[in-house]
């Protein structure tokens, strides 16, 4: 399977240009709130896919990494750091926790890793809820300017620009990994970890790299969240929808490639936006759960897999 870097980067730049131009001619402010959510899931899904899709290790604790990103950014905010530093703090914190958790659990069977990620999510939630500096159960308010710091548009447009940039980073990293020695090694681990290890693939090292990058990117997705909703509190940051969606979207889009999470995130997130306006939010998760089960049983290679089959590859 050859991949064409020139084609990709050309389309990529065009798409980015288009996305960056939207605030200049789209009037609806709601559109950018919705777009923020979609982009958030693009980052989360792409990040999850690096470990889950490429290597086959299912992370149930995406919400935790997302929340770490949010809370580390908030900590920076409380300490008076500029937004850029807060974002870096979020990424670093999430990456470090990803590494630590991987180190503790990646030597066990994949299933134990998954259960451990869930455990970590709850433990962190409990710690945050009981820590006054992070606002405890009540949370912390964030004061944001009305105007965008770059002088054009509202603050929400500024956040939108940030998210487009972050999504771009997530996709570029995801794609780079997929076509590199790291991606091939992770695929070998996913196909048959024992055989891979027995043939010289340093499985633990590769898994740790993937967990760290994946965690860091999920944290990245969380760093702007408090600025958007102007507060942060545990149930919002650790919301289960982050965990479900970051698993459902790559599976629905197709886990073998960087493109799958993008497709899955855009489609599913848009549907959810529409559904939550017209129905209730619990219905939302029911739909997601149902679609997830359907895809997992009937179309395990996702949307991309479906199209590949039709091409007869």
């Amino acid at each position: 399977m050859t991949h064409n870097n020139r084609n990709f980067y050309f389309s990529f730049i065009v798409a980015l240009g288009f996305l960056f131009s939207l605030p200049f001619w789209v009037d609806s402010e709601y559109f950018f709130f919705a777009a923020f959510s979609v982009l958030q899931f693009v980052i989360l899904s792409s990040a999850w896919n690096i470990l889950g899709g490429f290597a086959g290790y299912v992370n149930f604790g995406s919400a935790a990494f997302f929340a770490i990103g949010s809370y580390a950014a908030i900590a920076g905010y409380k300490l008076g750091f500029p937004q850029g530093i807060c974002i870096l703090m979020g990424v670093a914190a999430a990456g470090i926790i990803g590494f630590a958790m991987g180190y503790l659990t990646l030597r066990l069977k994949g299933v134990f890793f998954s259960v451990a990620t869930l455990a970590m999510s709850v433990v962190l939630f409990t710690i945050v809820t009981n820590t006054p500096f992070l606002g405890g159960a009540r949370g912390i308010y964030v004061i944001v300017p009305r105007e965008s710091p770059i002088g054009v548009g509202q603050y929400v447009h500024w956040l939108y620009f940030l998210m487009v940039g972050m999504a771009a980073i997530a996709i570029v990293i995801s794609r780079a990994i997929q076509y590199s020695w790291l991606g091939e090694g992770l695929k070998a681990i996913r196909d048959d970890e024992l055989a891979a290890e027995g043939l010289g693939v340093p499985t633990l090292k590769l898994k740790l790299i993937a967990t760290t990058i994946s965690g860091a990117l999920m944290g990245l997705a969380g760093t702007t969240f408090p600025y958007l909703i102007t507060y942060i509190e545990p149930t919002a940051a650790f919301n289960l929808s982050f965990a479900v969606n970051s698993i459902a979207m790559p599976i629905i889009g197709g886990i073998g490639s960087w493109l799958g999470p993008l497709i899955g995130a855009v489609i599913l997130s848009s549907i959810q936006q529409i559904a939550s306006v017209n129905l209730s939010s619990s219905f939302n998760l029911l739909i997601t759960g149902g679609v997830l089960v359907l895809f997992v049983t009937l179309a395990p290679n996702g949307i991309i897999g479906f199209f590949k089959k039709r091409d007869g590859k």
Partner: protein
Amino acid sequence: MSSELHQPLVRAQGITKKFGGFIALHQVDLDIAPGERVGLIGPNGSGKSTLVNCISGMLKIDEGNIFLTGNNITSLAPHARVHAGIARSFQIPRPFKSMTVLENIRVILNFSGEQRREASDKKSNEDKAIEILSGVGLLQKKDSLSGSLTQVEMRKLELARAMSANPRLLIADEALAGLSGTEVDEVLQLIMGMKAQGVSVLMIEHIMSAVMKFSERLVVLVAGNKIADGNPQEVISNPEVVKAYLGE
């Protein structure tokens, strides 16, 4: 003169492995010289595969040591042993099913093919993979999904993957199982040809004709114990060996 000339390539010393109360291997010693072709036989359940797993590092041994060119590798993880020079093929082929034949080789080359490669060899991993596949006769299948191969093709791929790691010792674990007459000869040719590349081979097999053709030295394991080790003709005439296979 350095005593290293007479040092074995691989020395397994006093290997003991227990599973709960069951002793799978008991104080097994095995030396393999550089470029040597050693056959390992024994009844089912005698511990052959366990020994292979111990040497390759998939199982932790309870007692004993394993040396490679004099270095103690007993505590090394499996992938590290591959880098050090011991590669194995699996009894039941385990190809990376989502990858093509070429990709199966290339991924190994990415991680272990660089070792011990000559400085003059500047081919890319992609080219090296093609070279290896040509050597085993799988070139025309290079872009097929590895899960779609025939039995004999899969066994060749198994060996090719192990060879990609540029090993000094290749352990072929029942690489001929389930193959028919000409197929056996085909694969056996490949295995025997490795000596010319300076690679020692430890072959675990049940097909006696192949074993006798292949082995420069023959080792027999019965119920976790080594009961014979030496010249193949002498070993199979050994009454204890005969008893283990025929008598009860």
